[in-house]
Structures are given as structure tokens and as C-alpha cells.
């Protein structure tokens, strides 16, 4: 259990809601594995996940509806295992095996 060095990918669940799913081919839920280390060899964090989603998963060309100034755009909440990412260290949160990461766009209709 303690010698986890040989694992090089982390299985996670990513979800989109509040309309964001439309940017991701109408997929609301994705189960996949992400590299355990980022480009610099550091533990993968949420910032790395956001870059990964933008570069590899998102087919929609309107990247600025998801990412702005290198982070998720204003109006999107990032929730790590059903808690606001502000409680978990924001984009520096290091991804753990089995994490559920939910991106929600705020709604404004009424």
C-alpha cells in the first residue's frame, strides 16, 4: 500500500453540469485515468487536469467558455468530491485515486 511509485496513472471521474456538458460533446460524466505526474514531474493537480481537459477532451473550439487566463473562467464552480475547491486548495489540489471532480456553470435563469 505504501509503495505506490510504480503506478503512473490515476483513475478519476469528471462531471460537467449547468450547460458545460455542451462543450464536451454532451457528455455529463467521464471515467478515465490521468497521468500521475504532470509535464514537470510534479504530482498532477487540478490545474493540470483543466489543461488536459482543454487540450485533449474538449472538441468545441470555444475554449474561452471553459478556460480564461489559464484557469477555469469566472462563473464555473469546481467541486472536488462534492466540496467547493476553495476548501481543498483550488487548482493546486493534488488529484487522488477515485476523485470525483465536477465542473458546474452557474445558472442565471429564473
Amino acid at each position, binding site marked *: 500500500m505504501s509503495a505506490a511509485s510504480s503506478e503512473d496513472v490515476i483513475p478519476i471521474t469528471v462531471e460537467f*453540469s449547468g450547460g458545460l456538458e455542451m462543450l464536451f460533446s454532451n457528455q455529463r460524466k467521464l471515467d478515465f485515468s490521468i497521468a500521475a505526474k504532470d509535464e514537470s514531474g510534479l504530482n498532477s493537480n487540478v490545474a493540470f487536469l483543466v489543461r488536459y481537459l482543454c487540450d485533449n477532451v474538449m472538441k468545441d473550439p470555444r475554449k474561452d467558455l471553459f478556460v480564461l487566463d489559464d484557469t477555469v*473562467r469566472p462563473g464555473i464552480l469546481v467541486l472536488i468530491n462534492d466540496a467547493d475547491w476553495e476548501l481543498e486548495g483550488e487548482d493546486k489540489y493534488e488529484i487522488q485515486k477515485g476523485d470525483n471532480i465536477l465542473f458546474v456553470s452557474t445558472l442565471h435563469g*429564473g
Partner: protein
Amino acid sequence: KVAKIWPLDKHEYRRYGRQLIMSEIGLTGQLRLRSSAVLVVGVGGLGCPAAAYLAGAGVGTIGLIDGDTVEESNLHRQILHSTERVDMAKVDSAIASLKSLNPTVKYVPYHKRLTAEIALDIFDQYDVILDCTDTPASRYLISDSCVLLEKPLVSASALRTEGQLMVLNNPPLPAGNAQGGPCYRCVFPKPPPAASVVSCGDGGILGPVVGTMGVLQALETIKIITKGIQRSSEPPSLLLFSAFSNPPFRSIRLRTRKAKCSACSAQATVTREALESGSLDYVQFCGAVSPIDAL
């Protein structure tokens, strides 16, 4: 003169008996409801069901603010209005229905769109505010006003098949007090890009989706009032509803007040003076509203 023995009138025991007998409400809760004033901002898909259940429960005074008139396209979800009242002011149409449901409530109409010039004067007369509006600009204005006047805010929104609900600024402690509940700016410090904002007119909305969120706003308001304002012990949370997902409801733990929030922290720049002088241009802040083929 003989002292009044019963704290409620006989008809009130009859009308509210089913909720009076519950330990969560009781006589104390019913008296708190009767002596409270609640403002519903926006009398559309959220405001209609919210106001109906607040009136039913016996809230003493209900204020309704909306500058729009009833349109036929509203009727699939705005259940206080009616076909024969198309073109009437929404506020008047809603009050006609509400009076018929419960004539003992005092209804206060405001036939205008909420603006920074009038917000504080109106909000000051109410104990709890419901945000039932549909633009980012109004959501920031309402939250800022609630923080400045120390009022709890029950905020909901809906679009297409989804809804969101938050109780903000609860307990409604003064700006700078970290024990107060987070405000809208704590959760969303910056407004979304205008191109990402979609209205119900453009994106569509399923009636019972927005209806569910409106009824839940009434419920949270009744919980706040009957418990006694200032006494919240519930941790801040966001309820997500997605009608076609499984599970359909999900509760998210939210952050507490943000140490550098521009509205509710010790360093707040959103002051009464700034708001009243018009130097906070909410429409400008949120960008021009021209939802194109965006989210």
C-alpha cells in the same frame, strides 16, 4: 379590558393547524412567520411558486418586485398568472392569485425593475430576501444589498433541465465578521463572461424544474424565519438539481466567507455610498447582455 388569551386568532389555528402541530414550527414559529416580512425579487418561474407557499404558510408581509407584464410564454411555468391576465403587470397578477389563496397576508407591490437606486430603501423593510431574478447583474446587486443591510438571502436559478439553490449571508452578520455566511461574491468573485450567460428565453426551461427550485426557496425561507433569524447553524451549501441525471439532486459544501471578499470582508469596497452613488455599475460589471449561441 380583558387581556387577549390566545396568541393567534381562531381562524389562524384553523388555517395553519397542520403546520402548527409540528415541533419544527409550533406556536413560536407561526408567530415569527406572522410578524415577518419577505421580499420576492422577480415574479417569474421561481417567484410564483415561492410566493404561493410563503403566502400559504402565513408570512405576515410579502413584497413583490418586478417590472414586467405577463406574456403567454410565461404561463407554462409561472403558475400565479393566468391567460386572462396576459399584459397585466406581473406583480398585480401575482397578488390577485395570492389574495385569493390567503387574504390575511399583506402584499406590497413594486412595479419596477430592481436598480441600485432603490434597492437599499426597499430591502430595509424586509427580513429575508429571495433572489428569483434571471441576470448576473441583479444577482450581484441583490447580494451586495443583503450584505450591507444584514439580511439573509435565499438565491435560486434554473435553466433548461437544471436548477441551483443557495442560502447566502446566513447568519447575516456585519461585513468583516467571519462567522457570517458567505455572500454571492464569495462564491463568484468575478461575473461570468457575457457570452456565457443564457436566459430562459434563449435556452428554454422546463416548468417543474424551475417550479421545484421556487418551492424550495419558500421552504428555506420558512426554515430561516421559524428558527429565528441570526440563528443559522447549517453549513453553507449549494443544492444542484438535474432533472435527467441520476441521482437528480446533489448537495455541495460551499466555502465560508472569503477573507478578501469585496462585499462581506473587512476590506469590503462595496459600501453603501458606492452602491447608492451609482459608482457600482452592475450592468457594466457583468458585460452587455447579448446572449448569442453561447452556453
